[in-house]
C-alpha cells in the first residue's frame, strides 16, 4: 500500500504535500469576513460601568492640551463633516468603518450627531477586535451644549464664577460663546453659528490626512514593503 509512496523522491513527496494543502485551501476562508464573535460578559461590564464614555469637556481638554495619543473619529457623512466637525477629527463614515484600516490597539474616540451611531460603531469595532474604543457621550449635541455654547450660572457663587471663567475660555477656544442659564431654559434656538476655532492651526492628530477636501475617507496606508 505504502510501497509507491516510499519510492517517491523527497521532491515528489513535497510536491504531493503541496497539492494536498492546495486542495484543502479550496475550502479555506482565510479572511475573517464579516462574521465576528463577541465577549458578551466583558461588553456588558464596560457598558454598565460607562467605562466606554468620554465626556465632552474632557475631550475639549484633550484637544486644548494637544494630546496625540488617541484618534478622534467623526462617523457622519462627508457632507455633514464638511459643515462642522470637532477640531482634529478625521472623517470615517459609518459605511466604510470596517475597511478603514484602523489599528487594533489604537485609542479611538467616536462621535456622531447624537449617540446612536457612535454606540453602534463602538459595538462594531469591539467586535472587530479593537481594544480601546470610546464614545463621545451625547455626541455633537452635547459637545455643542457643554463646550461650544456652555451655560453659565445666572447668579454665580465664587466657585461657580471660577468654573464659568474656564467655560468661557473653552468655548472661545472652539469658536463659540457661552449662554446664560435663562436663555438656555427658554429653549432659545441654539447654535447661532460657530465661528472658526480660535486656533486655526490645531495640529492634526496622528498620521492620517484630514479628508475634509472630500478625498477618500479611508485612512491612507503608510508605504511599506520591499
Amino acid at each position, binding site marked *: 500500500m505504502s510501497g509507491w509512496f516510499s519510492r517517491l523522491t523527497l521532491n515528489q513527496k513535497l510536491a504531493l504535500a503541496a497539492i494536498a494543502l492546495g486542495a484543502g485551501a479550496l475550502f*479555506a476562508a482565510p479572511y475573517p469576513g464579516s462574521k465576528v464573535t463577541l465577549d458578551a460578559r466583558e461588553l456588558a461590564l464596560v457598558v454598565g460601568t460607562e467605562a466606554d464614555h468620554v465626556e465632552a469637556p474632557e475631550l475639549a481638554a484633550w484637544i486644548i492640551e494637544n494630546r496625540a495619543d488617541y484618534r478622534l473619529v467623526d462617523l457622519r457623512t462627508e457632507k455633514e463633516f464638511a459643515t462642522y466637525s470637532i477640531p482634529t477629527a478625521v472623517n470615517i463614515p459609518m459605511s466604510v468603518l470596517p475597511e478603514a484600516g484602523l489599528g487594533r490597539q489604537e485609542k479611538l474616540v467616536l462621535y456622531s450627531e447624537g449617540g446612536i451611531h457612535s454606540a453602534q460603531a463602538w459595538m462594531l469595532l469591539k467586535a472587530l*477586535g479593537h481594544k480601546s474604543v470610546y464614545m463621545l457621550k451625547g455626541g455633537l449635541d452635547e459637545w455643542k451644549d457643554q463646550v461650544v455654547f456652555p451655560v453659565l450660572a445666572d447668579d454665580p457663587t465664587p466657585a461657580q464664577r471660577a468654573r464659568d471663567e474656564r467655560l468661557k475660555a473653552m468655548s472661545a477656544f472652539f469658536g463659540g460663546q457661552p449662554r446664560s442659564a435663562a436663555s438656555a431654559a427658554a429653549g432659545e434656538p441654539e447654535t447661532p453659528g460657530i465661528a472658526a476655532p480660535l486656533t486655526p492651526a490645531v495640529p492634526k492628530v496622528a498620521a492620517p490626512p484630514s479628508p475634509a477636501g472630500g478625498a477618500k475617507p479611508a485612512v491612507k496606508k503608510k508605504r511599506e514593503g520591499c
Partner: protein
Amino acid sequence: MAMTAPFFKYGMFGDEASLVLAFLIGIGFGFFLERAGFGSARKLVSQFYLNDLAVFKVMFTAIVTAMLGVTYLGWIGWLDLSLVYLVPTYLLPQVVGGLLLGVGFVVGGYCPGTSVAATATGRVDGLVYVLGIFAGMFAFAELYPFLKGFYLSGSGEALTIPGTFGLPYGLVVFAVVLMAVGGFYGAGLLEKKFAAAGE
C-alpha cells in the same frame, strides 16, 4: 486573540523593534540565498540558458510555501489577512519596471538581493552590481520629477487576483500550487534537454 498577527499592526512591537526584526529577517534571507548557490552569477544566469532552473524552483517554492502558510494561518485565525500590507498596483509602470529589472538581471548576472549576498561573501562582481544599484537609485531620484507622471499612472489600489477576477481565494491558491508543480516538472524536462545540448 492575543496572538493574532500581523504583530506590528496589533501593536505588539514598535518601529525600533521592527527595524531589528527586519535586520534579522534580511540576514536570514541572505543566508539562504547563499546556501542555495545564488551568491554566484554563473548559477543565476544559467537559468536564462535553461540548463539550471534552480532560481525558478527556489523562488516558486518560497511563493507556494508562504502562500499556503498565510492561507492556513488566516483560516485558523492566527493571522488577520485584511491587515497584511499589499503593494499598490500600478500595472503599466510595474510591467516596465519588471522588464527593466529582468534586463539588468541578464546583463549583470544578479538581482538586487543576490548581489548583496554576493558582496557579503567578497565577490567583486557583486560589489560592482551593488554600486550600479545605488547609481541607478540616485539617477532615478534625480529624474523623479520627469518620471513621476508615469511612475504613478494606473490605479494605485492594491489589486489582487481573487478580488479583480471575482475568483474564490482558495481556488487561486490551488491553481498557483498546480502551476508550481507543473512548472517544476517542466523545468526538470528543460534542464535535461539543455544540459545535454550544452555538453
